[in-house]
């Protein structure tokens, strides 16, 4: 495994960890559901916590890479972007499918 891909994998797992952490915090504290960041902007769009995890984390990694001029953070941002973009797009399509079927997805999709 080349070092660039290794850092991309670390970045993707870091983004996934932020996503999991935000969801897990809501699960152990159900009272926070409905408060920021666990709110829905639009029923057909992912919740705010998903945007924070999947979009802000890779952007933050990219910003750190630009400021510190370290290539590894840029690679981590790329890995995070692959995870984040795929997750946000997939979840949006799924929510659109639910809305089209007449359901109104609330805070997050249930599985």
């Amino acid at each position: 495994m080349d070092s660039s891909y290794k850092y991309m994998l670390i970045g993707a797992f870091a983004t996934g960890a932020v996503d999991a952490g935000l969801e897990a915090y809501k699960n152990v504290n159900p009272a926070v559901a409905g408060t920021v960041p666990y709110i829905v902007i639009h029923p057909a769009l992912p919740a705010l916590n998903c945007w924070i995890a999947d979009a802000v984390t890779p952007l933050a990694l990219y910003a750190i890479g630009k400021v510190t001029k370290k290539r590894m953070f840029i690679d981590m941002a790329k890995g995070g972007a692959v995870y984040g973009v795929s997750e946000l797009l997939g979840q949006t399509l799924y929510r659109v499918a639910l809305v089209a079927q007449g359901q109104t997805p609330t805070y997050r999709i249930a599985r």
Partner: protein
Amino acid sequence: MKNPLKMIDPTMQKMLLGGLVGSLSYYADLVLAEQAFYPAALKGRVMPQLPRNDELLTSIAPPAIMYVLGKKKPKFKEMAKGTMLYSGPHLMQRIVVNATNTTPAASFATNGFRVTPTQVFQNTPSNGRIYPPRTPAPSTVVSASAGKYR
């Protein structure tokens, strides 16, 4: 206007495409899981803490298939890496979320196909005591020898 996709290098484009393959197969399965013809076995769970069987399958199969395709055709190699970048962290995320989701109140209005872990709750009679699995709860049928029906 500049095409934003042209600003991304071709390797990254393939990885992004691979990630989308993983994501779309996962969410397409979730849509299919709501249909009546969907096999019930796939909706079950090996353990209550783990994601559903179909979620595990759609998280593991796409990178494995892409990896095999990448061995035969080099153009799938980068896509296989992208699928791994999505499916690996996503599976981790689903396991963490399922392991922490212990309260029935955490389910939402749209969770019609959610499988609740039943091993703990199925033998809980009205007296609130939790009996171990496979132990029958005491009968709550009132005997005919009591009350006005004796």
